[in-house]
């Protein structure tokens, strides 16, 4: 059964994101989960705590719940996250760490993630014992011009132990604009597919931001909605797949950042 769930995820391949993905659009410099999920640190120093829930393909037994916290010190960024996917006897628990540095114009980060099956009580030390699935990756971004952000993220440069549920190759992206933005992403090919290309755009009408993204192979789309009130931020995202159905993500974050954030 567990293999079936994993196979479902592998077949899906619809989202480059995994355990710690929030519901934000791609390429934003203010994505709170960017460091943990894609090794892309945020441009501005911020203190952030977030929780998210993902229901994969409308399957009640296949949900991911994640809690993340991130902080910064000068140009340094760090993040820690814990997530659980699936039922206790079938799912897995993931512990994520992210570390990086960034300025207003460039940033780079490292991420690591360890996974253990949930068929035994979770202990922190079990995440680092033999049998755990471990992956590490790196990412970098910079501003190619004012308002134009280019990034490269390789979340799984190195893997060990149990294979990760999703293979996540190198992703390249360009985004123009911050809140009113458009972006293009390119995901490198994996064994068995020819990669993925996506095109998205977002529009902001304070305090709301709505965005949509189209992807190929197979043709499908995502759309999301964000609302920010004071330090609270709510994100919702729906990914539609022509065969597997819909994936729904909801995230709630508390973000404290300087007002001078671009």
């Amino acid at each position, binding site marked *: 059964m567990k293999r079936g769930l994993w196979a479902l995820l592998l077949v899906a391949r619809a989202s480059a994101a995994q355990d710690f993905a929030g519901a934000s659009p791609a390429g934003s410099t203010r994505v709170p989960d960017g460091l943990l999920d894609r090794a892309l640190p945020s441009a501005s120093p911020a203190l952030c705590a977030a929780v998210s829930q993902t229901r994969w393909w409308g399957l009640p037994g296949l949900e991911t719940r994640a809690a993340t916290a991130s902080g910064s010190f000068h140009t340094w960024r760090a993040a820690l996250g814990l997530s659980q996917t699936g039922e206790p006897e079938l799912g897995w628990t993931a512990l994520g760490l992210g570390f990086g540095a960034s300025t207003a*114009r*460039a940033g*780079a980060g490292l991420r690591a993630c360890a996974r253990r099956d949930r068929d035994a009580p979770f202990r922190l030390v079990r995440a680092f014992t033999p049998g755990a699935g471990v992956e590490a990756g*790196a990412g*970098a*971004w*910079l501003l*190619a*011009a004012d308002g134009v952000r*280019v990034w*490269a993220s*390789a979340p799984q*440069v*190195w*893997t060990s132990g149990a294979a990760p549920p999703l293979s996540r*190759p*190198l992703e*390249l992206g360009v985004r123009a604009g911050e809140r009113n933005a458009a972006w293009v992403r*390119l995901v*490198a*090919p*994996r*064994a*068995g597919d*020819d*990669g993925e290309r996506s095109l998205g755009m977002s529009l902001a009408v304070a305090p709301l931001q709505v965005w949509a993204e189209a992807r190929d192979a197979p043709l499908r789309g995502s759309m999301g909605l964000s609302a920010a009130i004071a330090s609270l931020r709510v994100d919702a995202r729906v990914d539609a797949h022509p065969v597997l159905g819909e994936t729904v993500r909801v995230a709630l974050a508390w973000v404290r950042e300087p007002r001078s954030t671009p």
Partner: protein
Amino acid sequence: MNALRRAWLTAWLLTWTCVAFAQSPEPPPEAGEGDYTLEQADSLADAELEVAIGAASRGGPDIRRSQRVSFRGGGARATLRDGDEALSGGRVEAPFAGGTLAAGRLAPRWGRGLALGGAGEPWVFTAEDRGAGARYRGRSGTGLAFEARGASLFGGRFARRDVFGTRVRAGPGALGLLAGGRTVQGSVSHDTEDRSAELVFDPRGRWRAEAVLTDAIGETRVALRVRGGLAAFRSLAEPARAGPAHALAASATRELGSTTASAFGALWAWRAGQSGARAALEVDARLGQHGSFACGAEDQHGPRREPSPRARPSGTRQGWWCEWRGGSPGARLALRHELWGTRSLARDAVRRAVVARADWAAPYGGRLTLTHAVWRARSGESLYLPEAWSDRLVLRASSGAGSRTRCELRLPVATGTVRLGLSLASGGTRAAGRRPAWSVEWSRRSRLAPGPASSRGSVHALRGTDGEDQQLRIVRHARTRQGARGQGPEHHPPGDR
């Protein structure tokens, strides 16, 4: 009809665009399967000495130690390597009797290279690893060579046979004679700044001739190359680099403000019914002080390497690529995507590769570089991923689907520079599944006498001379020709054996 179409395409490219087509480095025709290493040309200034010691592991328990000494001064220059798996050996040059005496690795070139020092590929005008001033230090043979103002003489082991040669020059003209394997070959060449021609022949009547013309049409630089002869002709010293008997190639380049447009086209025929064509267009635009964006498209037909007489005709390959570089000297990022397909507009993909490279300035003058490449090639297809080291360019043979990551940290330590390298590979490569490969090298460059320092390798140069502009390029290369012998993961040129 196809020939007409190819000719029209080539003519169109030459008419409407223009050259310095940025050729990607490729393994030479004599290279077998597996990785191939190109040695960077000597970059020492006069009166400089460089010493390097290193150790490396290829993922196994074995550790290989290596040493390198290079010096230049008083008209003499030398590079000696020991323990280096791919580039061991060396070369020494010193003034002697009014000329220069060289010993060790030799890579001479005469005229157009038909007899000695050719490129092998019909679309390459001049081999990058042959002759004086070449970008890479070639290894066509081992022996002794003497060169004076009007004459040169050499003898050594080339292509598993003893070969001797002599050449006499008078103005732009030159006459050469090669002897070995109980036969001789003659060479008559004429070289000026913008024109070059060579005729080679042997006693059995086999011959080849080639001419190259370079000129400017307005602000467009153009070059034309024509070759003819008999397919049976093979150079005594480098038979694998004979290339096609008939070839026509042209290139054009034009500067348009901060943009350079280049075009290239080549037609060739190995023998009756086995012809090929290649045409490409490239645009390279500067973006500000440090950034650039380049993109290109290419069309290929027929075999690129000499096929066996019974080989089936090769199919069409169309590809396109784009590359962006940006950032500041403190943090730089470069991205590249390349796609090849069997149908027009690169549809029905057979090779796809995505490469990202980031490098940052580290404390104390250090530099950290991370390169990650992901590729997927259809069964029967392969590609080479360049990997630039401090003193070499390694072309990593890749097939199937996989990824390769290389991290290099360069730090000034103990009056020298330490380079720490770590490579990870997964799938589609000979190194896949192994433990991480690592390398450590400490090198120091010293001046032997007071004077200006070497200008090599500014750490802030985005497209410097250390091969950085080649690091991302993916070699457009199909399978090696039939009959080529595999020589393990690291290929050793013939002279190494």
